[in-house]
Structure formats: C-alpha cells, structure tokens
C-alpha cells in the first residue's frame, strides 16, 4: 500500500476522463482504498461512521488517464436512515447538483461478511450504473474459514470482481484495470422482484420525471418508503407521492408488504449467489475472540469497570509518560527565550519577542506531548473496535436521557476535538436527537482543554502524585460527561421533545490496532496543534502582548504591574471584574477568559504573556505554574487558591470557548440560532458551575 499511496497524483488541471465513486457498507475499507489510490490521508478507523461526508481525490487509471474519485460515507442500504447515508444515495441518484453522477461505482464488499454486504450491491445493480465489486478483506475471510469462488461470483453478479486486501496493498493493480476498462457497460443482472411489485415499479417509473436510467431505481426506492418518510420527500411532485401511496395500497390488497417484499427478494437472490460462491468451514457454535471479549467489555458491570480503567490508564500516562518531553520542551523554549532576550537591548521589540511571542507560544507548545499521548490512546480505542462497545455500554444511561447509545460515539470523538464529534452526529437518524447530541458534544473535554487542566492542577497540587493528578483530570472529563447527559435530558424534555429511539448498531470485529494508522494520526494531530500554535496562538499572543503593553502609563517610574493595569487589556480585565469577582477571579484572570474565547488553550498563553509582561525585564522568567502560584492580591492573599483553580477547571469544562466549533455547528444546523444558543447556555452554565465551586467551597470552609 505504501508504494501505491505514494503514487503520483494527477495535477488538478488535467482533464478528468471518468468520475468514480467508492461506496459500500460502513467499516468495509472504503477510505483505505481511497487513500491508497489518491495518496490522500482520509481518517480510517474500526467503527461505523468514520466517514460522514463525501471526499474527493484524483488518481490515474491503468492507462494513465486522470480520474476523479469520490469517497462516499458508508451505507447499509439506499433506503437511508441518517444524513450520512443520504449523501451516498443522493450522489448515486444524481440528486446532488454540485456532484456529477459517477461513471463507475467501486462497490467495496467485506469478504468476511459477504451476505450482508451483497445487499447494497444488489441495490447498486438496480441503479443501472457500471459497478466494479472490490472484494476486500479476503485474508480475514480465509482466516475465518470462508473461501469465495471469484469466478463464480463474477458470473453470478455479471460485473467485474476484484479480490483485495487493501491494508496490505493487494489488488490495486487489478482494481485500476477494472475501473479503466472501456466501455464499462451497466449491469445486466439484478434481483428479480415479485411480478406484482415489478408491475407497480415500472408504472411508477414511467410517470417519474427523471432520466430513463434512473427511473426504475427511483421508483423502487419510493415504493419502499413508509408513509412518514414519504411525507418528508421534497424532491418529487406531491402527485408522485400520492401515486406511490396508491401503488402501496394496491400491493397490500394483493398480500404484498411493499416495504419488506423487495428486501426479501434481494436476500433470496443473495442466498442463491452465496450458495454458488461461498464455501464455509467451521461450526456455528464456535465462540470467536470477539465474542469472548464482548462477554467482558459489554458486560453491565465489567464493561463499565473496563471503560473506567482505560480512561484512568490514559490519564495516568498523560501525566507520567508525557512529563519528560514536557520538561525538555519547557527547558528548551525557556533557554531560547533567554538567548533571544540576551541578543537584544531593552526595548519594545525585545518585550514583544520574549514576553509576547515566545512566552505565548511556548506556554501552549509545552503541552504537545500530552496531546500526543491522548491521541495515541484515542487511536487505539478507534482502531480496535472499542468505540462501538463504549456506545453499547452507554446505551442504558443514554436511554435514560432520551438518546440511544449511538449518540455516544460523537461524544467520545469529542474527547479529541468537538469538530469531528459534531460532524459524526450525521450518523444519527433522528433530527432532534442529532441536534441534542450537537448541543451537548462540546461539553466533552477536548484536547484544547488539556493545557488548562494541566496548568491548574500543577498550580494547586504542585507535589501531588501522578495518580492524584490523573484522578482530578479524570473527574473533569467525567464532569463534562455527566453535565452533557443532564443537559441532553433537559433538552429532550423541553426544546427537542421526542421518543427515545431504538438502538441499532453494528459492532465491528475487534482488530489489532494498526500502529501505522495511529502514528499517522498522532503526527497529523500533533502537526495541527503545532501549526495552530504557530498561527492562531502566535497571532493572538502578539495581539494580547500589544493589548497588555499599550497604552503605556504617563509616569515613566510606574511599576510593570501598574503599567499592565493601565493597558487596554488591563482596562478590559477591570471592566469585567465585577462579573467574575463572585467566581474568585481577579482582572488578570479576566483577561485570560476574554482572550480564550476564540480557543480555550489561549488561556494558558494569555496567562504567560500577562505574567511575563508584569514581571518586567529585570526578573528571571520562572515557569508559568510557579509565577501563578506566587501571585497575590493587593492584601497578600494568594490569587490561585485551590477553589479558584478548581473553579477555573470547571469553567473550562462547561464553557463553549471555541470559534471553530461554533462555525461547524452553524454549518451542521444550517442556522445561527443553535450555535448562538449553545454559546449562551454553555457560558451561563460555566459561570454557575464556577460560582458554585467557589462560593459553595467557601461556605464549607475551604480556601
């Protein structure tokens, strides 16, 4: 696969001779094939719903011709249930104006699960589109004692079939050849529908105002929609919907269920195909390793214990494994700052570089190792197939708040970043449930919160063990989870009322994680973090330095503390102080809160800048945690007491301080109403949470 992945990719200007789409069931290897053909790096993982929107890339056919490749989200059927499945259906039926109907469809089939995967193939063959079947994971099938007769399968399906092991680069040459073949005729074989049904399908097809090649497929899909779904159809004239309902009534009178009859007909055909091509060994009763693991990991008690143990180990490693590289980075950047400072005479430029740029960027950059450890563990969870199990064990809890376990997958993805988490809600069928999940997903602690938690824990627990630190970190993640559940319950009871949906989720087989995939993901996410530090954080650091430096006090003998109080940032901090004083925060923390409205991790860089500027040039630059620990109010009381630190962590657990997430929620909900509501409710929740911690703690006699 490496060689294929690094194959030259056609220049965007070269004429595309063929549009190719990759379709198939979720988790059958579509994105792995897409990545290998195009040289791109779409995210892959071992759970359904990794790809939720179409992605395009280019590749060369076997004769050097440029082709555009479209990676479609996984789908079990063209009778869609969720927005991600609708993307695949709409592209294949030419319903998307911005995407041409593909000339060829590579239908990826999981060879270890041929019968179920052939269902979508059966529907593809009904669409009159040239199809190439990529029979993937033949190695897994063989390991399971399943042998597939390739020649017989080609004959039975009437289309080219290529045997593949995409993860090992096997079968790509044959796949390119099959896709490049010209002309590629549309399929001639498909499942035979009962004659009564076929008659109604053809009558409806004739009346549909769509091109002839699309008519039968469209008619069949319309005829197999239940009444509520038909009521929501907007791409056909109401008279067509009425005609469909009439046809369904006629079919029921003759004893046919229009919804299940086509499914049964397709499975009857699949049964014939499989009996001719599939040779199985092994017994039905043999328990697989996945079955045994599921006995523990989905157990109502052991499943929870395993989940909590995994989270604890992850946070323990975040504090132990990452500690050494963090010290190296901190030491290196501190020495670099000192060296830059020693090169320049005392001036605003020196202050900008050392107190603004270096202090701001290094304050965030130092947390890179912890971010990498987090992504390493999340990568393992995604690649082994555990994500679906986590959704399963959460289903009981989720059903109590009116959602089903499937909503937990976007929430778990949000531990890395809320943006893919919000996008992953496209796998949720019900619109209201999807919206509820979008509204609560950013309450899950993302990687950007990690630097804030880590610095706060270091400030108020300087000599705590790694177990204690990871315990506090875990409790912050759990707080986000609990509040997310509580808010989901509230939304389902008030704004977005609806019945609790029924869980229906495929559990992928457990797999040994692909270390290469995990390392690539760590590299990419680490790179993103560093790029963010070098762009957004750098720009904000310069801005915050300017706001903390200008205007300068008229008195040249003013102390650095007086100077920052006089600056624009100081004035803003003082202006919002009455609002945050009940939380125990002073105006300098207020600058941090304002600065981090764009991105949470900016809080740490803002604190670095504020305290560096305040320290002036004649003091040694101490690590931020020590400066914060030494910070005092005018009356000598420490600023960062345990209650303030815990309150700040709670504030960041609950606050929606991420412009990128706001933008993605706007896109996914197609309105400003929901993201603005989300910002308002989360900010209110954060203030209340921090208030309860600080004032409640004081009432109980804590500091």
């Amino acid at each position: 696969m490496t060689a294929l992945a690094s194959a030259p990719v056609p220049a965007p200007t070269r004429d595309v001779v063929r549009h190719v789409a990759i379709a198939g069931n979720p988790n059958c290897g579509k994105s792995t094939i897409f990545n290998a053909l195009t040289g791109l790096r779409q995210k892959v993982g071992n759970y359904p719903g990794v790809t939720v929107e179409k992605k395009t890339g280019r590749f060369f056919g076997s004769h050097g011709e440029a082709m555009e490749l479209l990676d479609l989200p996984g789908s079990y059927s063209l009778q869609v249930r969720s927005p991600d499945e609708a993307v695949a259906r709409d592209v294949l039926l030419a319903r998307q104006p911005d995407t041409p109907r593909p000339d060829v469809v590579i239908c990826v089939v999981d060879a270890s699960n041929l019968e179920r995967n052939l269902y979508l193939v059966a529907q593809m063959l009904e669409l009159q589109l040239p199809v190439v079947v990529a029979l993937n994971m033949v190695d897994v099938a063989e390991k399971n004692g399943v042998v597939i007769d390739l020649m017989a399968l080609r004959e039975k399906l009437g289309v080219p079939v290529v045997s593949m092991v995409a993860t090992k680069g096997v079968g790509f040459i044959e796949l390119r050849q099959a896709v490049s073949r010209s002309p590629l005729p549309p399929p001639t074989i498909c499942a035979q529908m009962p004659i009564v049904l076929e008659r109604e399908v053809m009558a409806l097809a004739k009346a549909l105002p769509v091109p002839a090649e699309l008519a039968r497929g469209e008619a069949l899909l319309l005829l197999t929609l239940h009444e509520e779904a038909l009521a929501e159809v907007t791409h056909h004239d109401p008279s067509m919907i009425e005609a469909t309902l009439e046809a369904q009534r006629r079919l029921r009178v003759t004893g046919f269920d229009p919804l299940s009859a086509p499914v049964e007909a397709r499975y009857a055909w699949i049964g014939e195909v499989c009996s001719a091509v599939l040779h199985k060994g092994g017994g039905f009763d043999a328990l697989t390793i996945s079955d045994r693991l599921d006995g523990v990991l989905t157990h109502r008690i052991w499943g929870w214990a395993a989940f909590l143990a995994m989270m604890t180990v992850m946070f323990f490693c975040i504090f132990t494994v990452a500690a050494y590289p963090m010290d190296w980075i901190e030491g290196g950047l501190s020495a670099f700052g000192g060296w830059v400072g020693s090169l320049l005479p005392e001036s605003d430029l020196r202050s900008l570089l050392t107190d603004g740029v270096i202090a701001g960027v290094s304050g965030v950059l130092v947390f890179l190792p912890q971010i990498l450890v987090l992504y390493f563990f999340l990568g393992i969870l995604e690649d082994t197939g555990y994500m679906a199990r986590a959704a399963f064990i959460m289903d009981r809890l989720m059903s109590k708040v009116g959602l089903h376990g499937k909503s937990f997958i976007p929430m778990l993805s949000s531990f890395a970043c809320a943006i893919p988490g919000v996008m992953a809600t496209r796998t949720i069928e019900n619109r209201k449930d999807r919206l509820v999940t979008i509204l609560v997903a950013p309450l899950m602690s993302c990687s950007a919160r990690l630097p804030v938690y880590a610095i706060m824990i270091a400030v108020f627990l300087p000599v705590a063990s790694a177990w204690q630190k990871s315990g506090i970190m875990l409790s912050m993640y759990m707080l986000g989870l609990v509040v997310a559940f509580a808010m989901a319950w509230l939304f389902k009871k008030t704004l977005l009322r609806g019945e609790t949906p029924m869980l229906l989720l495929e559990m992928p087989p457990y797999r040994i994680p692909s270390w290469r995939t995990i390392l690539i993901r760590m590299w990419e996410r680490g790179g993103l973090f560093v790029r963010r530090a070098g762009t957004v954080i750098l720009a904000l650091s310069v801005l915050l330095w300017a706001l903390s430096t200008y205007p300068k006090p008229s008195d040249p003998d003013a102390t650095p503390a007086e100077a920052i109080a006089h600056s624009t940032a100081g004035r803003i901090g003082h202006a919002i102080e009455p609002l945050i004083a009940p939380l125990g925060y002073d105006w300098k923390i207020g600058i941090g809160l304002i600065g981090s409205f764009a991105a949470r991790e900016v809080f740490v860089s803002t604190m670095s800048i504020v305290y560096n500027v305040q320290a002036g040039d004649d003091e040694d630059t101490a690590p931020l945690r020590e400066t914060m620990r030494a910070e005092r109010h005018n009356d000598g009381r420490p600023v960062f007491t345990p209650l303030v630190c815990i309150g700040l962590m709670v504030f960041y657990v609950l606050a929606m301080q991420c412009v990128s997430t706001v933008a993605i929620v706007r896109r996914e909900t197609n309105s400003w109403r929901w993201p603005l509501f989300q910002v308002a409710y989360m900010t209110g929740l954060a203030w209340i949470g921090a208030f309860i911690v600080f004032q409640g703690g004081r009432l109980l006699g804590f500091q």
Partner: protein
Amino acid sequence: MSAPFPAGILTLARARVGERLRVVTICPDCPECVRLRELGFQDRMEVRKVSDGAAIICSLMGNRVAIGRDLGEHVRVEKVAA
C-alpha cells in the same frame, strides 16, 4: 405484542445468551422493521445472542449487531435444536 406466542416462540430480548436461535418473524409495526431485515434479520435466519443487558448483541451471518431491548421485543425467534 400482547398476544400469546405459539409454543416454542419467544422474543429475541427474552432469549438466553449463547442460545442458537432462528428468526420466525419481525413485527411489521416495528419502526425499524425494514432496517432489521436489511441487516439480515430475515425469516428463518439463524442468530446467536452474544450479550444481554440494556441492549442486546447478537451474531448473524458472521457479524455482530447491537439492538435495544425494546427492538429485540419485536423480533420473534425459536430455539434451534443443538
């Protein structure tokens, strides 16, 4: 759902873990009836219940599907003789 089942017929939700079962029918009023069928819950198809709790995991055609207990009540099955 309240009508008594013929002898030997039970719902998937009530079957025991590890039992070898055969799908008899899926209630047509089940909201997920079509998707269940599309995923392979066809009449006469053999399934095995792998895990039970608030939801059920069952194995059919070599793959595992998690379904809510409420949904499992809509799938009628019979035991397959060992």
